[in-house]
């Protein structure tokens, strides 16, 4: 919000003063969660001292740190394997989801015939398609079974948000274009499409989160490559500290993806 106004603020309105509190606030945004994280680590250690948990049940933070420092490269490599699946699934799922949203909005036939089927697929947990997909697809190849499940998860939020965005165009905006003789294609390109952007971007943000869920779920269920599979390996040998370290790595990448999309969203919709 603040950076957008810098570029577009009308001169006659009061110039936004550089508030002395702002930089402090910006730092606190990062300091507060960091302080809280330190408190959690301390609490974690205290719990182990008090209840004397066996390291297999709850390893101390120091052991997790050892995993991160000695096997960090391996964890990140595995995560990047997963990330490739996540991003392909996200890309194809979102693209198809957007196309489906456009078709459902503008074609009454598609809306009546396909939308109910899509909604019934939507309410079903996507993981139940996995056995079927493995029979059809096998494991591996491109797009592999993981990408397909990830696509399924990324698809729906984008479809629903595209429909909401495109059909939210006000009647007057349509009439504005039509009263000047604008074609339907012009209306779509110049009004409906830009109008729907904030909705679609919000859908993409959800789709990204769903894509992480989809890929990791399949990796845990059918381990071959990726960080989810490595978690299963660690579980087999009760390497609890490795599992916790892996979860931390996944969380960091998930957060990064989420904030990246949020940043893009803010850049593209500063007018919103």
């Amino acid at each position, binding site marked *: 919000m603040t950076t957008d106004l810098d570029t577009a603020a009308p001169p*006659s309105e009061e110039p936004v003063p550089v508030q002395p509190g702002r930089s402090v606030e910006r730092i606190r945004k990062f300091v507060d969660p960091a302080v809280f994280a330190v408190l959690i680590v301390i609490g974690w250690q205290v719990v182990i001292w008090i209840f004397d948990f066996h390291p297999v049940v709850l390893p101390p933070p120091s052991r997790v740190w050892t995993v991160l420092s000695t096997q960090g490269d391996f964890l990140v490599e595995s995560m990047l394997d997963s990330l490739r699946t996540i991003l392909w699934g996200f890309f194809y799922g979102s693209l198809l989801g957007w196309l489906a949203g456009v078709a459902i909005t503008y074609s009454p036939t598609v809306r009546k015939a396909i939308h109910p089927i899509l909604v019934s697929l939507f309410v079903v947990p996507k993981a139940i398609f996995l056995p079927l997909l493995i029979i059809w697809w096998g494991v591996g190849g491109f797009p592999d079974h993981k990408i397909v499940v990830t696509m399924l998860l990324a698809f729906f939020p984008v479809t629903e948000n595209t429909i909401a965005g495109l059909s939210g165009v006000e009647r007057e905006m349509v009439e504005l274009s039509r009263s000047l003789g604008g074609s339907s294609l012009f209306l779509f390109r110049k009004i409906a499409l830009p109008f729907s952007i904030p909705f679609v971007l919000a859908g993409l943000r959800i789709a990204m989160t769903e894509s992480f869920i989809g890929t990791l779920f399949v990796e845990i269920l059918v381990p071959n490559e990726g960080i989810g599979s490595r978690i299963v390996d660690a579980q087999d040998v009760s390497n609890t500290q490795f599992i916790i370290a892996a979860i931390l790595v996944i969380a960091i990448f998930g957060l990064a993806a989420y904030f990246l999309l949020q940043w893009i969203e803010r850049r593209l919709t500063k*007018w*919103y």
Partner: protein
Amino acid sequence: MGIRLDAISKVFETEDLTVEALRGVSAVVNDNEFVSIIGPSGCGKSTLLRLISGLTPPTQGSVFLDGVEVDGPMGNIGFVFQAPTLLKWRTVFKNVMFPYEVLASQRKAPAGKQEFEERARKLLKMAGIEEFTDAYPKQLSGGMQQRVSICRALIHDPTLLLMDEPFGALDEFTRERMNEELLRIWHETTKTVVFVTHHIPEAVFLSDRVFVMSRRPGTILGEVTIDLPRPRTPKMRESVEFLDRVVETRHLIGLGSGAELLSEDPA
């Protein structure tokens, strides 16, 4: 641009509802005339504007613009809606330029892009919002947004301006000022204006003639000729002649004694 409405009726039919919006509406508006249409909510005033603009066809009857029967949007009309209806992802300047893009997409733009850009700047200056040229709509107040939408309706220099309760959402002070500004712009760019409102003093202040419409189905109950001199000044609002026209319009609507209101259903 001259307008002739020839025995127009409009019926809206949906699956479970049939609404007769207009019944047998006939009227003539002269070239460069400023007319207002006044009447209760839901009487088909807005429908009438949409028929004139060619956005919807009449169920019966015909609309003629300069003697040519309307069978679709013609492009030489400016439309101002009750809400500013600005495209919020565009700057003020780009919003005002929108009609150029629509017309250029059909190779119908009456002038080149540069000339339109010059006009846009001139209009924004005339409307007193030139310092907001590069601002986004959300940074403007409601009154300023509506001024932008009026600039947008004027940029392609249409010969007909259709205004659907454009100042309905504004407070009384802003409304009066906008009335004066609209007349100033109208004087500078002579064009026919059809102005829908349900605010009687506004209709009287602006118009050459005021058409009064009935409740649904909308028919024209009569018209009041406003023979006050132009240019109209704020002072005129307090003159006896002005108030006479307001009273005359009130009577035509049926607001005379108030007794009629009690028997009417509040639809």
